Structures are given as structure tokens and as C-alpha cells.
């Protein structure tokens, strides 16, 4: 059975999905990844889905779940390289991946992860970028 490799890069885990996401592959990835995060106490996870051409509701939910679980395990998660068609599908499915950070490509995703780890983590309920009224709500 196909298995998606999880690479460790310093404090981060790097997952690039290069094959068609079968339902079982996705379930296995979810188990593997959560195990690895706990085992190496990773601070960040980068999930690159640039090779994913299409998603169905199950895979969309899996991506959301994987990202959500990683966050619960205290690893910042960045999903990178989402294709336009995939983004449209996820929005139409109502899976807006709230709370998951996104970046255009792996390089920017890495930069984002690094900058996230340098910042002191925001306390729950505290507004990010507070104090500046002009700082857009969307940031």
C-alpha cells in the first residue's frame, strides 16, 4: 500500500503529497503524522498539496482534519500550494480550513513557519495585531 513519507527538517515535519490521495492513504497519513508529531515533538508541519489536482469531500475533510489535529498537538500547520480548482472545490464544499495557515508554495510556507515560531504564541482570545485599528481583520 502506498504510504506518504513524512520528512523531518529540524523542528518541522514536511509532508508532500505526490500521489493520488486514496482514502486509505489519507487515513494512514493522518495516523502516521500525528504519531510523528508526538514522537519528535515537532513545532511545525508543512503540508504541500501542490500535486493534488482534485479533491472530493472526503479528502477535503482529511486535509482539514490533519491540519486540525496537528494544531491540537501544538504544531503550527501550513498548507501550501493548493491549486485553484482544489480551493474552489473546498470552498464549495464549505471546508474553509478555519485556523489553518496557507501559503502559495513550500518556500513561503517555510518562511511563514519560521516567523510563526519566532513570535511568542498568542494567548487564546487575544487578538493578533491588536492596537492598530487599520490592521485589516483578514490578516
Amino acid at each position: 500500500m502506498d504510504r506518504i513519507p513524512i520528512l523531518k527538517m529540524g523542528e518541522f515535519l514536511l509532508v508532500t503529497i505526490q500521489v493520488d490521495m486514496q482514502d486509505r492513504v489519507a487515513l494512514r497519513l493522518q495516523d502516521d503524522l500525528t504519531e510523528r508529531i508526538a514522537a519528535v515533538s515537532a513545532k511545525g508541519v508543512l503540508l504541500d498539496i501542490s500535486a493534488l489536482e482534485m479533491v472530493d469531500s472526503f479528502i477535503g475533510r482529511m486535509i482539514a482534519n490533519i491540519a486540525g489535529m496537528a494544531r491540537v498537538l501544538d504544531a503550527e500547520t501550513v498548507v501550501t500550494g493548493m491549486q485553484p480548482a482544489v480551493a474552489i472545490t473546498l470552498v464549495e464544499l464549505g471546508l474553509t480550513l478555519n485556523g489553518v495557515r496557507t501559503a502559495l508554495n513550500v518556500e513561503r510556507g517555510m518562511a511563514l513557519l519560521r516567523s510563526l515560531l519566532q513570535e511568542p504564541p498568542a494567548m487564546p482570545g487575544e487578538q493578533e495585531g491588536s492596537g492598530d485599528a487599520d490592521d485589516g481583520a483578514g490578516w
Partner: protein
Amino acid sequence: MDSRSTSRLPSLVEKHRSEILDAWLADQQASAALRFTLMPDAAWRAQSRDLLAAIADDMQQGDMSNPNASAWQPTRALLAEISVKRAEAGFTPSETATFVLSLKQALFGVLRRAVPDLDRLMDELWSATTLIDKFALYTTEASLAAREQVIARQQEDMLELSTPVVKLWEGILALPMIGTLDSARTQVVMESLLQRIVETGADVAIIDITGVPTVDTLVAQHLIKTVTAARLMGAECIISGVRPPIAATIVHLGVDLSGIATKATLADAFRLALRLTGRMVSQGSLRNGT
């Protein structure tokens, strides 16, 4: 009833063709409803002659009661051509239909003289009037179809024209939206914006809705979808050009745009975009000669 075998109309029309044409043209000239001046005299004459010729020819083999039969194909093609030509010349569809209907008077005159028996005459009149009515209806349909084609083409053009994605700065895209947003257009807009984000690797996209006349819940929904999709790809979206009435509408409708940065003008949005990408604009002193 089989009108082909009994009707004398085909042979009569063939025999009195020039007579009918003259009477028809005279009728048309006398009729004010036809706006005879809109087209040159020769064109009228040619159109009337061609139409009568086509009808007379097709009548010889065509089934009188069924104008949709293949035997009437040349007449139908000519009618379609005439209605398009007349529409271009500025005639209304009803005027074109009246033009075809005006053939009746000339045709009936010939019938009345040639068929003395009253019952027989009624039958002939009925089949002739049914036929010409159908032709008149056909011209209306043809001009409507031509119009529909023009509308469909213009809609496509508008769809193409109305979704330019422009690059404002390195990593900043702008999408000035013009016209009413419906589902089909939003889909095109969304796709082209997301595609450009991938191509240019933009961090920020500004959707400017200055040119959108009204924003209802559906439009707001479309906007939110577009912004969310862009965010999923890792680009931040700013909505700009929100006019005061639109802001009021959005609040009255209870649309929640709280998760989306909105600005009143494109300039404000651009300033925010520059800041989000870590740039700043500073005012330098003006130098002469540059």
C-alpha cells in the same frame, strides 16, 4: 383532408405570378403600416419577387398543410434571410410579419376570381391563410433567434472583458469588477483570479467592487467564496470600493464580512496591501527637472 391533391392554389399562383406580384407591391405601397420608405424601392421589389417565387416553386411539391416539411426549406431559408435583413434595416419583427401577411390580399384576389364556387373558395382561402400565417410567424421566430444569438455573443464578450486581473506591484494583484455579479460571472472571476495568483505568486489580491451596482446576499456570498478560496491558496484578499449605500445594504442584510478586510477606496486597499507585504510608501521631496 389532403389539400395537396385538391387545392388549385399552386397552379393558380404559378399562372398568375406576375399579376399577384404587382397587386402585392401596390398593396404594400398603399399600406402605411409597412414604412415603405425604410428600404429602397428596388430592394422591396426584389424581396417581394424572390419570396413569391420561392413560395410558388415550393408549392408545386410542398404539402400545403405542413409548412415545416422539407419541401418548404428554400422558402424558410429565404424568410430567415429576409427577417435578418429587415431587422438590420430597422424594421420591427411585427413589420416584417406584416410584410409577409400583406401577400394575402393579392393572393385572395386571384383566388376569388378563379374559384367561383363559394365552398371551394372558402377551403382554398383557409389553406392559403394558414400557410401565410405560419410563414409570418416564422419570420418573427427567425428574427428573435437572430437577436438571441447577438445577445448570447455579447454576454460572452462581456464575460471575457469583465475579468481583467492587473498587477499593481510585485506580489499585489487587483481585480476591478464591473457590472452585476451573477453565479456564472463570479465563477469566471474566481477562476481567473486564482489562476493569476498561482502564475504570479501574489501575496495579496485586491477585489475592487466600485463598478458593481448592487450587492445582495448572493453577491456577498460569491465575494466571500472568492476571498476564502484565495486564502486557502495562501493569498490574502482585500475588498475595496465599498460605497456607502453598499455598506448600508451589507449591514441591513446581515452579511458577515468580519473576516475580510474591506476598504472604501482602492488606494486604501493598496496601502494596506503594501503594508501586508512589508513595504512602505514614503514621501520624498520633489526635485525639479525629473
